[in-house]
């Protein structure tokens, strides 16, 4: 994660990590609970707008490209294996074990709905990965004295260092005549063993030195304190208010059954009112992007939030 985090100068990066994580958590939670395609689309739109405003579109596209492959698999598997649904779009040939291939509109729509849900989750993950500082996250998970947190922090810090080690050692091996262009997989794997070996030995030596440096700075002392970097600003309260409203609206709509959608045996009717409600719900979740836009445009607003 440390490898991907790079702070940019916009409001999304300058939120309290509790705000950012709550926002991302609610996005994922709603995408799992809601099944109506309008609401899933609304969630995707909201996270997309926030990602665009956070200036991580290039990174998001990479995530979307990877997701596309998974979505195609979801659609294919669903269309081929799910026999439910009454509106048959196409009758295919007889396949042993599966019977006659039968692709229905309901199965196709269900797969598209699942794909939308997958995209929301992946996009939320992308937002989390690029905009939440790992140190802040780790601090949230526990105080710095917590060994698990420290181990995680060290791993994230050392990841780029180890990547550097890997490239350097590979270069050195090539200079000693090791050819990594081997075609046979087993022989190729054998050539990588020395690299892993050196990385392991150097890693162990570095761990010892790190432990020594930590000891010299009193890591083993009892009675540690906890230093928090995080400030609460009006922007966090505004976003929390919007999240509160979105949660209340979401729960109310769930109780009313608006966020549910039945794909089988035939698709539920879709009416414009559902779209309007989903749009309103989505707009509440776009508040961080709106604030960011104002933050960039009006210095006065920036000073106030």
């Amino acid at each position: 994660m440390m490898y991907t985090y790079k702070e940019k100068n916009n409001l999304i990066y300058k939120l309290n990590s509790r705000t950012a994580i709550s926002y991302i958590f609610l996005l994922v939670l709603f995408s799992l609970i809601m099944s109506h395609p309008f609401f899933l689309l609304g969630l995707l739109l909201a996270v997309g707008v926030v990602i665009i405003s956070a200036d991580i579109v290039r990174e998001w596209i990479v995530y979307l490209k990877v997701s596309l492959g998974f979505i195609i698999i979801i659609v294919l598997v669903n269309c081929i294996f799910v026999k439910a649904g009454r509106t048959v779009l196409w009758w295919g040939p007889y396949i042993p074990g599966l019977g006659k291939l039968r692709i229905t509109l309901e199965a196709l729509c269900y797969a598209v709905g699942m794909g939308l849900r997958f995209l929301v989750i992946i996009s939320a993950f992308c937002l989390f990965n690029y905009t939440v500082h790992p140190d802040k996250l780790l601090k949230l998970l526990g105080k710095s004295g917590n060994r698990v947190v420290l181990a995680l922090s060290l791993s994230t810090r050392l990841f780029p260092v180890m990547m550097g080690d890997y490239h350097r050692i590979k270069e050195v091996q090539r200079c000693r005549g090791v050819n990594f262009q081997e075609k046979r997989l087993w022989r190729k794997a054998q050539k990588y063993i020395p690299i892993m070996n050196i990385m392991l030995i150097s890693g162990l030596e570095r761990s010892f030195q790190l432990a020594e440096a930590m000891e010299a700075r009193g890591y083993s002392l009892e009675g540690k304190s906890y230093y928090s970097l995080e400030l609460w600003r009006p922007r966090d309260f505004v976003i929390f208010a919007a999240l509160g409203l979105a949660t209340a609206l979401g729960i109310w709509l769930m109780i009313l059954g608006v966020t549910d959608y039945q794909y089988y045996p035939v698709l539920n009717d879709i009416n414009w009112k559902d779209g309007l409600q989903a749009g309103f719900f989505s707009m509440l979740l776009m508040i961080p992007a709106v604030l960011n836009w104002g933050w960039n445009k009006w210095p006065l607003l920036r000073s106030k939030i």
Partner: protein
Amino acid sequence: MAIVEIKDLTYYYPDTVKPALNKINLSINEGEYVLVMGGSGSGKSSLVKTIAGLIPEFYGGKIAGSLAIAGINSKKLDKKSFVQKVGIVFQDPESQLVMTNVEQELAFGLENLGLSTDLIRRRIMEVSGALSISSYQQSCHAELSGGLKQKVALASILAMQPDILILDEPTSQLDPVAGEEILTMIRRLNEENGITVILIEQRLERCFHLADRFLVMDKGKLVFNHTNSESIARWAGEKNSPFIPPLARLFAQTGFSRIPMTIKEGRSLINKVTGTQNSKNKQGKPVLNNVEVKKACEQSISKQTPLVIAEGVWFLYENGSEALKNINLRVNPGEILVLMGENAAGKTTLLKNLNGLLKPARGKICIANRDIKNMQVEELAGTVGYLSQNPNDYLFLDTVRAELEFTQKNLDINDPDKSEELLKRLDLLKYAEDNPRDLSSGERQRVALASILVSDPQLLLLDEPTRGLDYSLKAELGRILLELKEKGKAIILVTHDIEFAAEIASKVVLMSQGSIIGSGNKYEMLTRSTFYSPQISKLFSKINDNIVTFAEGVNYLQELINNREDSSAMLRSG
């Protein structure tokens, strides 16, 4: 009052029979700037780690004798007081930073001490302001340069407000500019804040004149302990110890009664010597006259066909930065070419283009009459040897001998005599069956060098080979490289170490921002420069501008003394 008092201290690392520290007696006064010197494995680090409380607490082992910090016996000091009184900064910043961002790093030690958030915030503000790292507080370590990382490591210790600041080779992994900055900061802390500083450092020419106390360690013993810089210079001269800077060694070796510590003092002494001479001799008789200098240049421009020819070489990294711009270079067999210049000048990129790790965007590189455009690194490995900055990147096998055999096997070379001869020549035969990871830093570097030389390459590329080496190891490496040069090998090395370059270079190339901005023999390139001149050249600057090496300096100074004695004799007889 003594802030550190050590009495009869002896220490054995676990499972060892030889003491790492042998009957040490030492007293350090409050506010002193102590310089600890000694070869690899002499016990310097063990001594400072004992003062920092890491020995025996962290390492285990057996210890005898006593240590008192500010008059309190270390056994009576609780861990918290120890950590608050003594802070230690290690050599590799990568191996001492724990958190991912700067502010968190500065807070780490303070959290361990249990300080309140307000106090931590205040300490972070103070220390980051004092060390000019405030603007990096929210930066991740991965985004920082080596020098900045070491500043963060220093700041994280200073935030704990120690009375004693220990630094174990803090600049060994840094380039000279960053190293200089760290040493300047340490001097300021000592002078302006009265912090007791205990420094282990290899770049003696930069800190020797600042020290109040000099300690020399050898085989676990404290063999020299004095507060007078002249005494150590004289002692080192008598014992032929390499642990004094070239300037002091020069005057000690030529028998001067006063030993200067700075170039300014040295020049004033020289002026006194030359001042007694008549006007005809005032400019001094050069050790090498112009004809000899020309000859020295011509030696390097040999009539042989160049082994390396680079013509109009350009290189671009993927991010679009032009790392090499129109590089033209020729290197002959039996020539040592030294590449110098600031960080990111393109020196390492040039080496990687020469051995095929990177391919030029434009231009041509020929090695041994072959255009290497379509050749892979592996194909070139038998002709071009490459030694990177970190010898640890080479070592993974169980024995030193196996490391050499590994390269031979990859390159289909079946010549056990060659490997045996190399082990002997690099003084590694006694370690042939040892694990290379158990050897000292200088020995590890020799093993890495041997693993390259075993393929008998015609061209040897070395990237910062003196980084982290002490004076004696550097001298040994220089001797090996000169020996290879004599055997007709061409050597290209990147270094920031001007003293080392002065001793071994045939030719010096200065690079800046991807371009060659000057090249020539070392007499042209390493004299008359404020920053790219060795101490010896600076000393004789405008007196005799043809002196670069230590031996030339000794000869010339001796000549000046003889001339002075002759003139005095003439005056007396007249």
